[in-house]
């Protein structure tokens, strides 16, 4: 047992080191291509994220959406579901919070909490559509949830161009007063308390997944649905539940992120956090407890890439390329932990 843990920890560290190496190689390549100063770029990438408290706060800010979507994806993948609605639910949840909070008025803590819970409930309900389609009819949840993302996106666009918009501020919801938002942890760096909610969600999901009988049934369904059914688990119920919970957590994440870091909802495109959730889940091996660490890792890389792009030579998009390679790097292990069969062991 203990030996196993050490072994998997070593494997994780090896992969993280490999991921950092890949990031450095991609950056160096881009640097040579764009005629940048290699030493300057590397310093900005590796030391930029910890150069002052603002940069560190930026990492912590980046972590919040990653934790929420990472946990949501982990729960769904543990049950064998590749649902993409995390993306749409995060977007929809943020929008709902932006609309609801001004309606609820200025009540310290109460307003943001009610808005966040409402976003969780509504997005969970919307997430029920692809979940039920999968469990009852066998419709591929990947395609249906992607379609649902686009539908949510355009409905939000419709509302924000019309009824939900601030009449004095086109294409945005009403201004969020301080009392409608989540309190700040630090006035200077504007670090929001939504980080605490994110960490609580990660721990709570970990407890749910590993310490309750529902969590056990959910994992069993993901490992082998037929076996789960034979042992008396109503697998279909968990297939639905895992996706609804995932969507609901993502909605909660969007709401917490908006009420922590923004003064209005005015996103014009899907923010891609849902797909980031898959990066995080694969680094964390679908373990909610490990999700905050994975988010810290990716947050660090992202702020590093941001610092590099501020130098002016290399565009920020280079991070997508690095992320893609990281997912594949962690992918092999991902299969082993999900199916526990076949495949050569790497590392």
């Amino acid at each position, binding site marked *: 047992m203990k030996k196993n843990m050490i072994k998997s920890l070593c494997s994780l560290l090896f992969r993280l080191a490999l991921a950092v190496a890949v990031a450095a190689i991609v950056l160096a390549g881009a640097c040579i291509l764009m005629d940048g100063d290699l030493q300057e770029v590397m310093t900005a990438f590796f030391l930029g994220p910890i150069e002052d408290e603002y940069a560190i706060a930026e990492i912590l800010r980046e972590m919040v959406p990653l934790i929420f979507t990472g946990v949501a994806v982990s729960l769904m993948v543990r049950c064998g579901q590749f649902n993409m609605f995390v993306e749409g639910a995060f977007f929809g949840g943020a929008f709902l919070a932006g609309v609801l909070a001004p309606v609820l008025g200025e009540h310290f803590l109460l307003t943001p909490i009610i808005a966040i819970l409402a976003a969780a409930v509504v997005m969970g309900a919307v997430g029920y559509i692809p979940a039920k389609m999968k469990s009852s009819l066998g*419709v*591929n949840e990947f*395609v249906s949830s992607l*379609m649902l993302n686009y539908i949510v996106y355009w409905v939000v666009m419709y509302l924000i*161009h019309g009824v939900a918009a601030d009449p004095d501020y086109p294409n945005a919801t009403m201004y969020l007063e301080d009392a409608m938002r989540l309190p700040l942890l630090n006035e200077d760096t504007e670090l929001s308390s939504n980080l605490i909610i994110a960490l609580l969600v990660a721990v709570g999901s970990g407890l749910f997944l590993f310490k309750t009988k529902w969590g056990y049934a959910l994992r069993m369904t993901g490992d082998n649905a037929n076996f789960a059914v034979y042992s008396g688990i109503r697998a279909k119920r968990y297939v639905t539940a895992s996706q609804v919970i995932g969507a609901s957590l993502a909605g909660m994440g969007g709401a917490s992120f908006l009420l922590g870091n923004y003064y209005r909802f005015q996103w014009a495109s899907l923010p891609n956090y849902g797909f980031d959730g898959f990066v995080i889940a694969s680094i964390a091996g679908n373990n909610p407890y490990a999700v905050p660490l994975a988010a810290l890792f990716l947050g660090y890389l992202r702020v590093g890439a941001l610092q590099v792009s501020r130098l002016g030579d290399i565009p920020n998009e280079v991070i*997508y390329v690095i992320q*893609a*390679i990281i*997912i594949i790097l962690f992918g092999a292990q991902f*299969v082993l932990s999900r199916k526990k069969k076949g495949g050569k062991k790497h590392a």
Partner: protein
Amino acid sequence: MLDWIFSESFLMNVIAYAIPIVFAAYASLISNKAGISAINIEGAMSIAAVTGALVSHYANSWVIGLTAAVIAGILMMMLLALAALKLRADNFLSGIALNTFATGACLLIVKVVLDGRTDSSTAPSVKVPNVDIPLLSDIPVIGKAIFGQNLLFFIALIVLGLLILLINRTRLGVQIRTAGYHPEAGESVGVSIRRTRTIALIICGAMAGLGGAYLSMANLGYFSAGMVSGRGFIGIAAEAMGAGMPVKTTLFALLFGAVDYFAVGGQTVLSFPYELLNTLPYLMTLLALTIYAAAHNKKKG
């Protein structure tokens, strides 16, 4: 509104909007037949779109541009083969990763080549020409729509024929189907599953390349970030509805193309908010998937 639907340009545009979806559906069809799902068709299409647009501009030739786009599409699928077949990463997850890769790489390429722009309208593509078959294109209503289409429409028709032949009449087709239906049986008689799937992915990549090239080299005269906007995924849905049958898949892709054009074209004709019209193709796909699955389950008993 009826005038609009029964006009000559309506059918013309429906087919024009369906072409990228048709190619995406063929890409999905051939990979699924071989038992590997290529959800990075979406990403491969956008990489092909940006490659085709830029290469055709700088080489000043649509032939070279189209070839480059096809090669780009194939390369993207070879990355999937590398990740999912060679490194044995999860098939699905590799696809998601490669879509993420494509999102970033497309923007990087345009930004690097065109100094920080996110579209290539300053470097317009050399467009793939339209074909005008004499006499036939003079037939009222359907003439222009079918016989005066873009060259890629005719390529799609040829591809459809070749696909049917390939799957049903060739040795490779049998191997591809074996790799999909019963890989163990294939291995036991000496068919290399990995090799067969790689070949299927090459064809899949070429299809995605053609679809992407159509977007930036025929439909629009330049590449813009996010221009694929789910057409790859809709193609995958069309293939799911067509249940792996080429003709049926084509018909569903045409249907999705029709809804897609209805949403875009309707914005000027109908007094209906365009945002809600834009949900139509996706809503339609969702509905169609549900009905199809329900009917399929009933038949199975």
